[in-house]
């Protein structure tokens, strides 16, 4: 399947963004973005640093609200909901943050158990929390690390704990959002994380959205890859078609090659990090 414009119709999407725009100050980060995410598939969003990939992800879980446009989760419009009304939506979404966002004051086990303690629709018994947190830690190969604190873990281990926390819900999440899951990791650890994402995709049967600028990761984990450029998606297609793209920006990004116009844009201010 060739790369194409992003007006592809996905029947019964689990997540849908309709003409979403978002600006920070004078900088427009998302510009009339449309996106439909297919159920049970892994959608990868690639793009240069500061192009708004993380901003888009945060709109899906209601951490940011669009200036214009609509965001839907499983048929429910969520961009108009208040924090309390968003809780049932968030119960269905796991989020792996770029900086892992593990709670320093808690052990690995308590970090993983946190979503079940704080965010379950029904009260989950201690035995069930114990069982599920162990299962999730075993799934990411960190069963023996439950009493450690995040500060005692390596970058790859922290990422795996963050992954375990994202899936540790009862019932299991419908969607997992990954924000730069391999950023800052060595190639071997990055590969291990990619395999884990793929394994979770198959094992837990969730819908995944992965935001990355790591092309190896994009091709390994994605069923569909979209490229964000200048606040809009400029391409959409299966990962194997990435290298054959006719679009110059896509080709240069995939090949990791910068030309004069790309170098010129380096002096442009990147979007400020939003807390």
């Amino acid at each position, binding site marked *: 399947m060739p790369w194409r414009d992003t007006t592809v119709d996905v029947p019964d999407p689990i997540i849908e963004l309709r003409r979403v725009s978002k600006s920070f100050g004078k900088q427009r980060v998302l510009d009339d973005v449309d996106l439909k995410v297919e159920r049970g598939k892994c959608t990868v969003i690639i793009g240069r640093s500061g192009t708004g990939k993380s901003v888009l992800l*945060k709109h899906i*879980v209601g*951490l940011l609200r669009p200036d214009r446009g609509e965001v839907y989760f499983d048929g429910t419009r969520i961009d108009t909901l208040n*924090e309390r009304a*968003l*809780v049932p939506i*968030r*119960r269905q*979404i796991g*989020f792996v*943050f*770029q*900086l892992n*966002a*593990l*709670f*320093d004051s808690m052990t690995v086990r308590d970090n993983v158990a*946190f*979503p079940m303690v*704080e*965010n379950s629709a029904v009260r989950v018994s201690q035995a069930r929390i114990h069982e599920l947190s162990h299962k999730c830690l075993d799934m990411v190969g960190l069963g023996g690390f439950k009493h450690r604190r995040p500060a005692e873990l390596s970058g790859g281990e922290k990422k795996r704990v963050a992954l375990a926390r994202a899936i540790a819900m009862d019932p299991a999440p419908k969607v997992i959002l990954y924000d730069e899951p391999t950023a800052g990791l060595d190639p071997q650890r990055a590969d291990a994380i990619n395999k884990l994402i793929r394994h979770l995709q198959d094992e837990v049967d969730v819908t995944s959205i992965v935001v990355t600028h790591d092309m190896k990761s994009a091709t390994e984990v994605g069923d569909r890859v979209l490229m964000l450029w200048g606040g809009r998606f400029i391409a959409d297609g299966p990962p194997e078609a990435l290298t054959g793209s006719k679009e110059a920006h896509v080709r240069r990004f995939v090949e990791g090659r910068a030309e004069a116009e790309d170098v010129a844009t380096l002096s442009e201010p990147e979007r*400020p*990090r939003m*807390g």
Partner: protein
Amino acid sequence: MPRTSTLQTWVGGFGERVSTALVSFGRFWVFLAYAASFIPLDLLSRRGWQRLLPQCFYIGTRSVPVLMLTGAFVGMVLVVQAWAQFDAAGLGDYLGAIVNISVVSELGPVLAGVMLAGRVGGALAAELGTMNVTEQLLALRSMGADPVRHLVTPRVLACLLLTPLLTIYADLMGAVGSWLVYTLVYQGESAPYWRHTQDTLELWDLGTGLVKALFFGAAIGTVSCYKGFHCKAGAQGVGQACTEAFVISFIAILALDFFLNVVINGLYAIWFGFRPLVEL
């Protein structure tokens, strides 16, 4: 197009700063009210106590030694400063009364508050600020937990409850410290020292000191958490939040102390009239 004069630029800039300050002030009160709205529910729930008790340990138990030392030195210094004057006037026996009233109603709560602003306020701003810049606050929200309820309410409540208790420690050590210097260094007698203290010091003095401490605790907890929650990115942002948390808490303590003294002294005068501390 007409040129903007220097005065217009200055007035515009000044107006913008005033407007920003007012908005920030308003946000602070909304933040305070929102955090306080969870207190009744948290006091009635097991999860609330699970969040509160570790903060009580950190804010309270670990502050005891430094608060006791502060109190002791305050009492000791007051005796050293006042002894010569009181002794020359033949009022050495009244020293305990004056020193202990000063410690219990004024210096104990204020210095305990200042110590806590430095020890606890800075740490709270740094902890929450770091959580902010490392996306932990966003992670809490993404998991359906309210960061204010989860992080701010227990910390503010712990400051609110424990500052008066820690002030009692500081008061106690202030009294003991002053008594030790009075008896060991200046060879004063214990019996008149404590008798005059007992005759002069009223429950009102102790109560007003503790009421002040309650306000100081609330100010320390809320200001520090607010600064942590709204800190700018990076290590510099966290550092700035810590500094601002201490400075604003410190100023808030002194300002609150002034206004509370005006109110408390006014109420005392209305209900009990004038009270001479030394009856000659």
